[in-house]
């Protein structure tokens, strides 16, 4: 039972980092990233690449964490100056292309069969590391959200033209946010690889992106507490799927499908009945006299 709790906390912490990364992009800046799984996969595959080619683990982490923001900047290049629809399409395409490359080029990290990587023998250590990473990203995101930069990102989210008239370059801000949040997601990917000990393309499909989206939309994309709450709810249902399958005697395939369907339903219902999420963003008021 303790083992399971430790494992759950580790997994929730890893996915919380992904959710905070999406919070910075979508909740704060308004970037609709439908390829959130891409930086996560890049981090994980940096590790897998290192393991498959006999490089040390820190090199793998380095590859993942450096490559992800660079890819992010590359992906945002065609999408800047365009409506959010296109950014969504391009990120979606980029994520799928990365997965297909890993699937079809076995030289990189084993192709369809995947690669085994070093797995943390000590589950407590994994949990502590995951929680540390979560704490760092949390503090960073809070810091950004409360800063003048965070205010400007919110302006950008609401009105790109307004941000430009205030003398800020919207694309520069978007690039900054993308690079920073993709580093976070890549770090989560590195950790995830070492927690599970095995990396294969099937763990990084479009559907994974929407598990993150479900958590973020459910909790409230514009608040950190919101995305954390959403992730806890979504990931608890996710890790308990195995037990539900055992307990109910239903085939695990069916239970997995029902879980995915539930996520879809949650996305729809939240938009219909509580579009701001469980924890909505409070309107910030500034008193000019007391500044």
């Amino acid at each position, binding site marked *: 039972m303790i083992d399971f709790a430790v494992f759950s906390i580790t997994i929730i912490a890893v996915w919380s980092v992904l959710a905070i990364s999406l919070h910075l992009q979508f909740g704060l800046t308004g970037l609709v990233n439908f390829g959130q799984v891409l930086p996560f996969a890049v981090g994980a595959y940096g590790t897998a690449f290192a393991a498959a080619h006999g490089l040390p683990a820190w090199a793998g982490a380095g590859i993942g964490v450096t490559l992800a923001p660079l890819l992010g900047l590359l992906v945002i290049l065609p999408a800047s100056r365009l409506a959010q629809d296109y950014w969504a*399409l391009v990120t*979606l395409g980029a994520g799928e292309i990365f997965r297909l490359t890993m699937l079809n080029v076995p030289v990189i990290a084993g192709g369809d069969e995947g690669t085994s990587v070093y797995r943390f023998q000590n589950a407590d250590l994994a949990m502590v590391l995951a929680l540390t990473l979560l704490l760092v990203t949390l503090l960073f995101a809070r810091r950004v959200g409360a800063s003048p930069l965070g205010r400007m990102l919110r302006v950008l989210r609401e009105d790109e033209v307004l941000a430009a008239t205030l003398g800020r370059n919207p694309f520069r801000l978007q690039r900054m946010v993308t690079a920073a949040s993709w580093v976070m997601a890549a770090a989560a990917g590195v950790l995830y690889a070492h927690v599970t000990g095995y990396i294969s393309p099937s763990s990084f499909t479009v559907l994974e992106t*929407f598990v993150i*989206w479900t958590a973020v939309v459910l909790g409230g994309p514009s608040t950190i507490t919101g995305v954390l709450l959403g992730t806890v709810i979504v990931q608890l249902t996710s890790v308990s799927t195995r037990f539900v399958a055992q307990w109910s005697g239903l085939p695990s395939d069916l239970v997995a499908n029902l*879980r995915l369907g539930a*996520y*879809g339903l949650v*996305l*729809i219902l939240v*938009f219909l009945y509580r579009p701001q999420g469980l924890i909505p963003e409070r309107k910030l008021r500034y008193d000019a006299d007391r500044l």
Partner: protein
Amino acid sequence: MLQILINTLIYSGEIGIIAVGVALSYSVLRFANFAHIQFAVVGAYLAFTLNQFLHCPLVLAVILAAVLTGGIAVTVDALVFSRLRDVTPEGKMIVSWGVALLLRSTMGAIFGSSSRVFGLEPASLQIGDAFFTSLDVVVVVVAILAMILLHFLLYSTRLGTALRALASNADLAATRGIPARRMVSLMWFICGAYAAIGGSLFALESQLAPNMDLIILLPVFASVTLGGLSNVFGAALGALGLSLAQNLLIGVDFGSWFSANSWSVPTQFRDFIAVGAMVIILLLRPYLARRRRAV
């Protein structure tokens, strides 16, 4: 070369029928509907069920599946999208993924994740040194007929005129007495039906599995982007262009250009061309738009 052209026609037929629906719904409601891909999968599964379990003749099964999927699309709109007309386009895109997940998991829960085949045995035909099957002929003929029918519907009937009016200026159309709600329902019906036909053709040519959505997702959205998102026949032409590019790249023996060994791009890489084409168009788009404005 002839083989490449034939393969191009077959693949663009399957993808094009699905893509026109995405463009049609984008032109009227202004959001990219990712649930559309699942309409194709649902349609294919309905056709399969009608054909294999209820022993309908295949043609009737596909037609019935198209009607039923059209109905599903109208229902989805009534339950979800019609109540979110004021939400931002990004919001609608996200919701459309919610619908997609729900439809996908329903199909997965009912039919399981293993793949199924219709088990047709089409006759093989040959022109010159190009091979194809009677099924391929049917696919291409159906695709062409579907496009002609859609063109007739949109450009030669009062319904089509109303629908196009709604797409170009919804407020004005409503003021002029066009029943917007009914027109939008009609549009969803067409989208669902076309997706179901396209999905069925796709499944007939290869196989049926819940992860079919991931296979058609990129080519369909790349075709629609190539056509300019809201242009219905642009999407069909986009499918044709994309399919040609893909089949050329896969079919041409690049190895023989440089050495005696034959080497061509493996088939699994066709989606790279889809995304590549999408990115190139997006990079060029601001310039294209500026030139059009200048003219």
